[in-house]
């Protein structure tokens, strides 16, 4: 039984185990005070999108109440203020990823658009019939479908590095796929469906040994672990703002200057040019060459605020706390005989895909929702992973630093309710 006393001791335990105080940080997120179906919201769908701290909400409000205007275009005060706030956000992203230059940071809509940009601009220019692209068996559809389209357009071939039953990439098989025809490697850092953390240092090094450029899909890693693109030496890195406690509609493509400079524009329009006549157009310099049209100005500034917020907590503390919570949840789930966890990589982030007996995940999701517990059910935009494990879908709890042990306990109680309903 949870009494006020032992609830407190759990809190103390939590505090002592990691420097991060989830209970205090929760106060920064207004939405976490919400109730759903008469129960306190337990939000465990962070891999789909995460909630926003007040600092981000305030930053967006401030743009629109204080200094909103279009950027890069006006000589008036508002335009200057807004332009510098937007460019400051770019520098925040640069520091966050430890990129060498701020011009290597391109603002896009999301990770999906960032991948599409690279596929269209780099891919269509540099790949032709018979060339090979290597991805992994655990990619999100965002890192599969754009390459398939490119293959249809160019005659290039998509090769897929396999994974084990535990959901770990088979590094040796990946290395065997690299050959003289390999022109590009595009791999997910952390799998959104399995939680697997891929050994991207080795993946990048092996590709570079053959002079092959590498894109890392950091949609799930940037919010949960610190990233240093120079140390990783990846050529491209992509992530979405909305999974990083920032606004939706803003995302980032990082690319090394040498690549971005040589790539043609992705879209044409305003802001991406330096001179236009009907005979000839000169493209603007980086990063503007890739930012055609009016961008999501408040989104970029909100993302900057999210980065400030995360950095103030510290990505290392976040990662350590989430690991503890993952272990706690995994242990608790393992005690329920009907529960089967999909994905048992040794290096794993706080994403837990599971099945309960032969109960369909959709039914699990509905019953948990009635208990106030928000999880994701379905194929998580990674249908090939479901096929690999011979299942149609999973239920997935994905954790953030604002989640607590009590919330894991609520998940467990909800799962027991599911088992009760289905007898």
């Amino acid at each position: 039984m949870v009494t006020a006393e032992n609830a407190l001791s759990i809190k103390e335990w939590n505090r002592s185990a990691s420097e991060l105080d989830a209970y205090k940080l929760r106060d920064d997120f207004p939405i976490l005070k919400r109730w759903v179906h008469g129960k306190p919201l337990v939000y465990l769908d962070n891999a789909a999108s995460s909630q926003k701290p007040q600092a981000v909400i305030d930053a967006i409000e401030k743009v629109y109440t204080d200094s909103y205007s279009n950027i890069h275009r006006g000589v008036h005060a508002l335009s200057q203020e807004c332009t510098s706030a937007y460019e400051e956000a770019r520098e925040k992203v640069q520091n966050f990823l430890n990129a060498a230059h701020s011009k290597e940071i391109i603002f896009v809509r999301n990770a999906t658009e960032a991948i599409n940009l690279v596929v269209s601009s780099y891919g269509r220019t540099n790949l032709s019939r018979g060339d090979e692209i290597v991805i992994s068996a655990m990619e999100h559809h965002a890192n599969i479908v754009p390459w398939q389209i490119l293959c249809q357009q160019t005659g290039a071939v998509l090769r897929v590095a396999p994974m084990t039953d535990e959901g770990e990439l088979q590094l040796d098989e990946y290395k065997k796929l690299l050959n003289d025809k390999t022109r590009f490697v595009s791999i997910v850092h952390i799998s959104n469906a399995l939680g697997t953390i891929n050994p991207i240092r080795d993946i990048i090094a092996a590709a570079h040994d053959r002079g092959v450029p590498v894109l890392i899909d950091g949609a799930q890693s940037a919010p949960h672990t610190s990233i240093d693109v120079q140390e990783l030496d990846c050529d491209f890195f992509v992530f979405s703002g909305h999974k990083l406690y920032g606004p939706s509609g803003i995302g980032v493509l990082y690319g090394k200057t040498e690549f971005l400079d040589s790539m043609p524009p992705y879209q044409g329009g305003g802001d991406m040019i330096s001179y236009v006549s009907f005979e000839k157009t000169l493209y603007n310099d980086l990063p503007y060459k890739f930012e055609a049209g009016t961008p999501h100005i408040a989104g970029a500034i909100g993302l900057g605020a999210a980065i400030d917020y995360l950095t103030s907590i510290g990505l290392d503390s976040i990662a350590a706390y989430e690991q503890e919570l993952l272990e706690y949840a995994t242990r608790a789930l393992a005690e329920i005989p009907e529960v089967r966890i999909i994905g048992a990589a040794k290096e794993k982030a706080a994403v837990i895909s599971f099945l309960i007996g032969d109960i369909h995940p959709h039914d699990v999701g509905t019953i948990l929702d009635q208990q106030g517990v928000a999880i994701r059910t379905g194929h998580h935009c990674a249908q090939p992973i479901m096929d690999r494990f011979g299942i149609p879908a999973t239920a997935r709890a994905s954790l953030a630093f604002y989640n607590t042990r009590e919330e894991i306990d609520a998940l467990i109680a909800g799962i027991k309710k599911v088992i009760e309903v289905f007898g």
Partner: protein
Amino acid sequence: MSELDELYQEIILDHNKNPRNFHKMEDANHMADGYNPLCGDKVTVYLHLDGDVVSDISFDGKGCAISTASASLMTETIKGKTLDEVKTMFESFHDLVTGRKDPMKCEVCVGKLKVLAGVRQFPMRVKCATLCWHTLKAAIESNEDEFVTTE
């Protein structure tokens, strides 16, 4: 009854566990696949039409309790019915699960399908209940002349 109990009634849980007419039909003359891209569910509906009468119907595939029970109940309900009757039933059933019609007023036309009325409280699950019906419609419209069995 709580919303949850209304959704997962005994009859539904029973049809989920032991779906009726759950098999491939060797001599089907109409067939269609239905997918729910949201959850990856798949259902195949097999029909044997004699003129405009559904002389036999079956289904197979993989889905949640709501979609499995709905398909099972659908096959039980429409066997022996004419295509016109099927059409009216689909319309009434659709009104029922989307909450456009009071379940008590639907009794005549949808019969035992009204156990699925609980779905109307769960907008995200309406598609689960209607997938088999949309697939049935596609099966009816599938061209008999072009139809080839996989055998």
